[in-house]
């Protein structure tokens, strides 16, 4: 059929060696059913790991803030003993909070990046692949978790270097990884959801910046809930970050915590986040 046009096209003169194209003639067999989701999640996570391998500067620059928190805030309040921590040094109490905070910042920023990817056509093209919206968002959510997890490792190492008595029990560390990923999944979906509502870069940046600090302060990351004013306690109770911090404290320090509740809330929050963000993703395609 195409032979008929050969004479007309100047560019078509060069012979095409069929062997060069062999594989490109056959469409791949589609994955179906439950296999789609893990495949897409892996694809998105691989992208994040590749990017991180090419450029590690973000890993280092993002380590500065948590280090300062631990070093200045942590050391100072350990000496002052102003905050009741149930018998452990304040810096130990603070470390899980800072791990959660740095993971949250990364996740929220990662969600914000989706607007850049939309504007750059990267997201647009992914939306035209056989990837259901929920699978795409899950992929993004877990990719942010992978990114946050690598950052968490850096913060844990810094904390350990500062003398925080952390567990090295592998099972508990695995739990830490799951907690960090679930929390990041929620927070990245939170900002994707906001992106789906406000639709423009500038507005999203403003809101993203406006919510991160309050989410951090209105949680048990810096101080125990018990010493908060009543209204802040309420906010802290509905803030998934509090449950993330509680779980991290329980796992890393062995302090009393509510692991079952924490995991339950984090899984639920991640599912709600993924569902909401997926349903709004179509608005970002328009």
């Amino acid at each position, binding site marked *: *059929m*195409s032979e008929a*046009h*050969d004479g007309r*096209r*100047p*560019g*078509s003169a*060069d012979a*095409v060696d*069929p062997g*060069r*194209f*062999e*594989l*490109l*003639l*056959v*469409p*791949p*067999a*589609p*994955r179906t059913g439950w296999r789609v989701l893990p*495949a*897409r999640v*892996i*694809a998105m996570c*691989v*992208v994040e790991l*590749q*990017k991180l391998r*090419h*450029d590690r500067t973000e890993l280092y620059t993002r380590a500065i803030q948590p280090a300062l928190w631990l070093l200045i805030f942590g050391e100072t309040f350990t000496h002052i003993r102003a905050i009741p921590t149930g018998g452990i040094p304040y810096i130990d109490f603070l470390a899980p909070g800072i791990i959660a905070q740095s993971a949250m910042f990364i996740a929220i920023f990662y969600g914000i990046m989706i607007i850049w990817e939309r504007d*750059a*056509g*990267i997201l*647009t*093209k*992914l*939306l*035209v*692949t*056989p*990837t*259901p919206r929920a699978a795409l968002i899950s992929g993004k959510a877990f990719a942010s978790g992978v990114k946050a997890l690598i950052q968490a490792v850096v913060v844990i190492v810094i904390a350990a270097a500062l003398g925080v008595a952390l567990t090295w029990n592998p099972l508990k560390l695995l739990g830490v990884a799951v907690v960090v990923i679930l929390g990041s999944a929620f927070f990245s979906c939170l900002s994707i959801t906001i992106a789906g509502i406000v639709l423009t870069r500038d507005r999203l940046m403003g809101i993203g910046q406006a919510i991160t600090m309050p989410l951090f302060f209105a949680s048990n990351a810096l101080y125990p809930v018990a010493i908060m004013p009543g209204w802040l306690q309420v906010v802290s109770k509905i803030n998934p970050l509090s449950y993330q911090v509680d779980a991290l404290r329980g796992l890393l320090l062995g302090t009393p915590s509510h692991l079952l509740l924490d995991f339950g809330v984090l899984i639920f929050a991640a599912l709600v986040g993924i569902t909401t963000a997926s349903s709004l993703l*179509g608005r970002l*395609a*328009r």
Partner: protein
Amino acid sequence: MNLQPAPDSAEEAVSCHALDYSFGDTKAVDSLDLSVRTGEIFGLLGPNGAGKTTAIRCITTLLPVPTDRVKVFGHDAAKEQMAVRRLLGYVPQQLSADAAMTGRENVTLFARVFDVPRRERAARVAQALDVVDLTGAADRMAKTYSGGMIRRLELAQALVSAPRLLMLDEPTIGLDPIARSSVWEHINAVRQATGMTVLVTTHYMDEAEQYCDRVGLMHRGRIHALGTSDELRGQLRDRRRKEAREAGTPVPAGDTATPTLEDVFRDVAGQGLDEEGGDYSDVRSARRTASRLG
């Protein structure tokens, strides 16, 4: 080896029927009827703001359409989104490769999301890169690529899943003449080897004349003329001759009197073309695209 996937000649690659799409009050696509035949290179032509991108995005399932309006190889874009997407290779108007990854990684991502099995993934990605002559640059970061190379990389991303329909939205916008013809040569070579259907938008009339089997001239959301560029030019020439004869003016003759595709366009689009061909925002977005490429 048979390089042509058995084309069902009765089947249309794309068919749009009475397709509308509005952004608020802007009617971007206005009861569009379009039919792209299997195996052809179809050019959708039109000025800024004609609705080309919107029409393309309706076909790709990016924009929601009602049922029975858009079909891709018989699959309804509203009801069978996944089936439609599996048949498509899409290159959007703006440069869409991920600058923070290498060329190979960019293509591999698309191999993954189109379910290319692991055992043939590397080989398939290598072939896609080879087809667009990026083998040598495959392991460089995409941010070091020129505009023409990025376009070819996007072509490789679209080809790695062996689509039956390649949809290219202004593939040559903002490229220098050499990069432009290189992109077209690669499109052609691939089309020849695979027999895939190509739907391309452009506002370069010369490209359309040279490379497209058929063109549709689009203006304000509608197709105003459809055919091969020779047909369209011939029709206009004959009509002008007839008009001239009837008016008693000298009949234009010979090659110099054959109108160009651009003349045809001015004829079908009427006088509105110069004054209203795209509002400010269209021009601005076109500029932005051009500067991103530059």
